[in-house]
């Protein structure tokens, strides 16, 4: 097991290295270089040359890359041009928000997708089954931003039930020991803040969770259908076990293997891919932050942020692989 994990970790190194090269070169290919972005539009040529020299931007590319790699490996991702704060501290503040959103979306997706998929498989071929298939196809065909706009209209504009933007009301003063707002509210024992944060979380979570919901439902249905006809399930039934026991201990347990893989992969996607949801709901997570940085040409943020997200994505996938190997002993022998 340990060898498997170490091997997979070693395989990560070239990917992360490749990523850093890609992001490094990409920044330098953007129109208007970093020096121009730092100084603004009215900078003189002399000032630009000066800044380029100070930051080593006039050195050959390999030298620049080497310097960049060294600072990055030491954990320094630079300073945001827009906010003048260090990129790492901004990540530390925003990533918890994204994690919170992604987890809420996943809870929504699993909480509804798993039972629906299970029932669809149980009632295979029924109207419910067909409806669930149509529903899941519809779920992956509705763009997140369209769903988000509709949700905003119905629940904020029309019914006025839920807030449409942000993570917490401006009037609420909450200390942030962890930057996970829900957790902060619990720690501070501030239930009105907890309720407020939760209300801000509902609509974005539904919008973001719609696609995972459809996927979890489809996979659950397929996995349960697969397992249901296995010999051991038939044996369990023939032994006279109650249907509930057969379903929970024999069917669902074995079907969980592909389902948990999909859940892990989807969580990785959500952590890195909440750009649209965060933009529509002006949710201060990491996706909307990087998107804004691209529009504002905030190079250190783009560079550090994309590298960070990609590393998170790769690590989550690795975790999925490892947990898969733990859940399914058969896979370990092959490697």
């Amino acid at each position, binding site marked *: 097991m340990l060898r498997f994990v170490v091997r997979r970790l070693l395989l990560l190194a*070239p*990917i992360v290295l*490749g*990523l850093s090269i*890609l992001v490094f070169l*990409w920044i330098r*290919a*953007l*129109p208007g270089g970093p020096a121009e972005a730092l100084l603004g539009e009215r900078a003189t040529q002399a000032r630009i040359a000066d800044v380029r020299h100070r930051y080593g931007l006039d050195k050959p590319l390999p030298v620049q890359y080497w310097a960049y790699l060294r600072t990055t490996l030491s954990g320094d991702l630079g300073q945001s041009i827009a906010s003048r704060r260090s990129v790492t501290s901004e990540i530390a503040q925003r990533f918890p928000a994204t994690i919170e959103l992604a987890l809420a979306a996943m809870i929504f997706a699993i909480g509804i997708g798993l039972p629906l998929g299970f029932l669809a498989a149980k009632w295979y071929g029924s109207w419910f089954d067909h409806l669930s*298939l149509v529903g899941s*196809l*519809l779920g*992956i*065909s*509705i*763009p*997140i*931003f*369209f769903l988000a*706009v*509709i949700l*905003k*209209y119905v629940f904020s*504009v029309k019914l006025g039930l839920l807030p449409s933007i942000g993570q917490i009301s401006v009037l609420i003063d909450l200390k942030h020991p962890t930057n996970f707002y829900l957790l902060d509210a619990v720690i501070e024992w501030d239930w009105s803040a907890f309720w407020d944060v939760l209300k801000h979380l509902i609509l974005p979570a539904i919008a973001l969770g719609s696609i995972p919901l459809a996927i979890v439902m489809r996979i659950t249905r397929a996995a349960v259908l697969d397992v249901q006809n296995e010999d051991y399930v038939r044996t369990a039934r023939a032994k006279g076990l109650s249907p509930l026991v057969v379903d929970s201990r024999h069917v669902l347990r074995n079907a969980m293997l592909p389902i948990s893989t999909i859940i892990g992969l989807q969580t990785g*996607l959500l952590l*890195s*891919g909440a*750009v*649209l949801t965060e*933009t*529509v709901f002006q949710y201060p997570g990491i*996706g909307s932050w*990087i*998107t804004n940085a*691209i*529009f504002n040409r905030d190079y250190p943020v*783009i560079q550090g942020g*994309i590298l960070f*997200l*990609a*590393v998170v*994505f*790769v690590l989550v996938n690795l975790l999925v692989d490892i947990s898969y190997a733990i859940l399914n002993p058969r896979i370990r022998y092959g490697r």
Partner: protein
Amino acid sequence: MSIAEIESAELALESSTGGLWREAWFRLRRNPGAIVGAFFVLTFVVIAAFAPLIAPYDPTIVPTVLPETCCPGPSSAHWFGVNVIGQDTFSRVIYGARLSLVVGIVSVAVGLSVGMFLGAIAGYIGGFVDSVIMRCMDVLLAIPGLLLAIGIVALDLPFDRLYQLMIAIGVTNIPIFARLLRGSILAQRENDFVLAARSVGVKRPTILFSHILPNAMSPMIVQGTLALATAIIDVAALGFLGLGPQDPSTPEWGNMLADAQDYLSSQPLLAVFPGIAIVISVLGFNLIGDGMREALDPKLRGRA
């Protein structure tokens, strides 16, 4: 009917499978989902192709008289109402189909061809070349697709934004196709018919092109169809974020949705029409892709 005739009729019955593609086509036609999908896609394509004939107004023209309030809803003159500067929403939705379809098809074609090329090389040559190509694909896959596309559009390459969109979405598709084709080539390479071809001295390129590739095509076609659906969403997503066509008057569904957001309380229909247009076209490709996957799945063959 003579005995010979009966026998020949029976023989014809037995040998009526007619190969993978004919059988798949046969099953596809019996899949109600695929039929509905084909209907959606056909409607989408016809609307895109004949937009000038269908749209009652010029979608880019700004009327001299602005609507008094925002925004008059559907009427007999404007079926889907007009937007805040008085443009006909119906005409804009119709013309928007054009852009989505063209950008979608071209970008998938870019991703498919480059991805197939790389995947074929990696899968067939193997060894060091395979490792290098696949690690590069892993790097591309590690960056969230939309961010990658945004990043490419932000490069301001020296040609029209429309081509940039095609390249951006195309590039996000490259690793998917490359991996898929490499995987199926690796699976095919060990098959008996490839071994047989090699043992009688067929040249390597011939083996690749006439033995391996044709057998690796069906997952590519399924993925290509599903990628079209994703590409249409991606075009709209980029447009929604303000990275659509350079000229803001160009009708584009995502862009229209973003504009409608500001007038949600007074005229929500402005967001609904382009949104539904996206959903129907995406759903169409997804339904066809799903149907094809089922039809081409060897495990389901002969069940029909």
